[in-house]
């Protein structure tokens, strides 16, 4: 027998709200650090209270970015009146929506554990739901800043909505935590599947050719100052080989750029900086008071999909010139940057040899029951197990294959 809507509403009003309000009181207890929210040694649990009609609307209109008010509950702490919306590009889903949670959507002064927002990633493009988390951990282990994340059981109005990942947003809070500054210029690379692939080709000198598309300002939205981006792209196209390192280093941390691509190459990411459809899934941060920027990784659900035997030069020099990333092509002509690229690949191989197989076993065991119970995921538990098996094979074989590839590559 189904419970009547009136009964459900009454239960929410009588049971859930007082619990939420009690949580709000407990939120005044000594604060827990944000690291606890992203602590991946345990399976986290997050609850959202959303008006049932709003939740139905969000799922029905999952292609829109409409915000809905909600209460966010974690470890008995309640953040009231947060804003949630559907998010993603290829991962958008009306069954298991990916969510963005903005703690300060309706109250600009509201933060939670020092965070302005988090992403609840639905992982619907990855049967193991592990790609993103493993990839970001590898970035961090080789010394590149990357979002923290952990798996989470998500409940919406006390109903299990599925296994998600809670992912740290790349925003001012992230910048302050990693770099001790948050007043620089942050851009999200905003890939639209309808656009032609872009690989740093020079479009012209006007900043408006580069921002707000494809470089969407995340900070300084009303004054995005994209001139340094236009200058960077012009320098890629017009600077002589002799001046390349000196000039380009004024606009971009080139060593981190090639190291970033090296990690993606190790992970055989098909939708990253050298993605099959042009550049995608990164942020660009320009430091306060300078023209120098660095890239930051985002959304690694397509990592591990290029195949364990993928060449480390995939999409670098094995595709026709128009499909090559113009900056990467020029960077690889520089011996020092080429060395950074190959050394980072070797570093990835060393880290992965010691860590990746055990990490796949640990994390897959941690989330398997939650994945099994996730009726909204588009994959069966058999597909989950098969993908975990493939990841274990990858962990066992990839490092040696990459080392061989590096060894064969001229420096």
């Amino acid at each position: 027998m189904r419970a009547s809507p009136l009964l459900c509403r009454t239960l929410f009003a009588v049971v859930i709200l007082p619990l939420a309000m009690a949580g709000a009181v407990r939120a005044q207890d000594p604060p827990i650090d944000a690291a606890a929210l992203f602590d991946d040694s345990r399976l986290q649990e997050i609850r959202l209270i959303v008006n049932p009609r709003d939740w139905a609307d969000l799922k029905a209109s999952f292609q829109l970015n409409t915000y809905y008010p909600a209460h966010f509950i974690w470890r008995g702490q309640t953040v009231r009146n947060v804003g949630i919306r559907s998010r993603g590009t290829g991962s958008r889903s009306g069954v298991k929506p990916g969510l963005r949670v903005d703690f300060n959507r309706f109250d600009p002064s509201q933060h939670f554990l020092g965070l302005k927002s988090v992403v609840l990633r639905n992982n619907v493009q990855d049967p193991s739901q592990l790609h993103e988390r493993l990839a970001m951990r590898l970035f961090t282990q080789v010394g590149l800043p990357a979002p923290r994340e952990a798996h989470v059981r998500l409940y919406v109005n006390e109903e299990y909505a599925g296994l998600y990942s809670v992912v740290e947003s790349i925003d001012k809070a992230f910048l302050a935590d990693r770099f001790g500054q948050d007043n620089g210029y942050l851009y999200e690379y905003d890939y639209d599947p309808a656009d032609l692939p872009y690989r740093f080709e020079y479009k012209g000198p006007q900043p408006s050719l580069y921002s707000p598309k494809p470089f969407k300002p995340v900070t300084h939205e009303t004054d995005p100052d994209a001139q340094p981006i236009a200058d960077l792209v012009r320098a890629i196209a017009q600077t002589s080989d002799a001046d390349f390192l000196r000039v380009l280093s004024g606009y971009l941390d080139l060593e981190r750029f090639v190291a970033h691509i090296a990690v993606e190459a190790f992970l055989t990411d098909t939708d990253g900086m050298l993605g099959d459809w042009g550049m995608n899934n990164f942020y660009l941060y320009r430091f306060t008071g300078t023209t120098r920027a660095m890239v930051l990784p985002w959304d690694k659900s397509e990592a591990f999909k290029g195949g364990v035997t993928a060449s480390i030069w995939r999409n670098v020099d094995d595709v026709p010139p128009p499909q090559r990333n113009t900056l990467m092509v020029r960077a690889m002509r520089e011996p020092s940057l080429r060395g950074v690229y190959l050394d980072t690949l070797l570093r990835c191989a060393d880290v992965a040899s010691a860590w990746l197989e055990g990490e796949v076993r640990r994390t897959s065991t941690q989330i398997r029951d939650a994945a099994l119970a996730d009726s909204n995921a588009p994959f069966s538990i058999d597909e989950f197990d098969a993908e975990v098996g493939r990841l274990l094979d990858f962990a066992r074989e990839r490092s040696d294959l990459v080392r061989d590839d590096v060894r064969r590559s001229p420096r």
Partner: protein
Amino acid sequence: MTRGTAPAVVLMLAAGMPVAAQSIAISDDVRITPTARLDTDVRRAKGSDDVGLDVARRRIGATGAISSHVEFEIEREIDDGWRDAFVNVRATRAVQVRAGHFKVPFSREQLTGAGALDFIDRSRAADLLSPGRSAGVAVHGRVAGRAVGYEAGGFVSDGTRTGLVPGSWSEPTVAGRVTLKPFGLARRGSTRRAKGWTDVELGIAAVTTSLDEGRESFRGRLASKDMFFAPVFVNGRRLRVGGDLDWRPGPFGVRAEFLRADDARQHQGLAGETLPPIRAYGWSMAGVWAVAGRKAHARANDTVAIAGFPGLELTLRTEAVAFGTPGDAGAQVWTPRAALLSTSAERVWTAGVNWTVNRLVRLQANAVHETVVNRSRGAVPPRAGWSPVVRVQIAN
């Protein structure tokens, strides 16, 4: 000039000149009068500081009668659908029945036709809180020697919400309005004339609507259409009540109005709980002075030549409108499902000049000062200071 303006001008001129040709008699009982109206404003555009040309109304229509007891009226906004399309059956002066698509009776200001307004824009309360046009049936008339007027009817909706299926009873609405000339009543049977006071007319009105669930509460908009109170989720009954006064002694005219509306929010909380209603209220007081006197102004309104000085009127209005939850002390942060919402309010002063050039052309110039208090999240920052608006009305 935007698309459709030229045909409107042509139709207006065709209908308006010569004067004798306005009304077409088909037979002794059947007559038809084409109508046309073109109102063009010079004002600041929405969300911008740029001043530009805006065609506020481009209407064509007709009024007429098909017998001594049956009248009709149709009017269409070019490019924007039908406005009025109704038949009025007059059994007696006291009992008349109107059926079709027409204004839901509520506010005096809202029921005043575009050509008879003392200001370019209706009062904020009338504009934001009144129902619109809807399909329905109403009984109306005047009794007690025309001292008492009434109108009551049922409508398929309150006419403010777009996207409803035309003609569907999705948001049924019942409306009633009563007007009273107290000194007109007193005068009946008396041979003494209460000079000046017989024109005093009071009105009260109420409208109740059954609202569909949705983010469709009243919303606060400035005259520029920028929003200062964003809509919230509602469900249940919408109840409007109002009262008004109209008095035109000699060359002066005074009009005052108070309107209030409550939107229920059944099961609109985050956990499905019922929230306190959203309350919107507003008032206005306006004065108008026909510089050369009321009779001279009436003659100016009927001339085909240039009326000159007698066509001048000076106007002044003060008003306010506010949105929030009753007893909003301790109001939470604004969300479309917040239990308590702090009051967002607008205060407006308008000073103006009207010049009736002749029976076809009228010029209006208003200076509007809007002040917004505590705008809700998502609303635009208010612009301080006076903003000028000029309107050219051409109508027959």
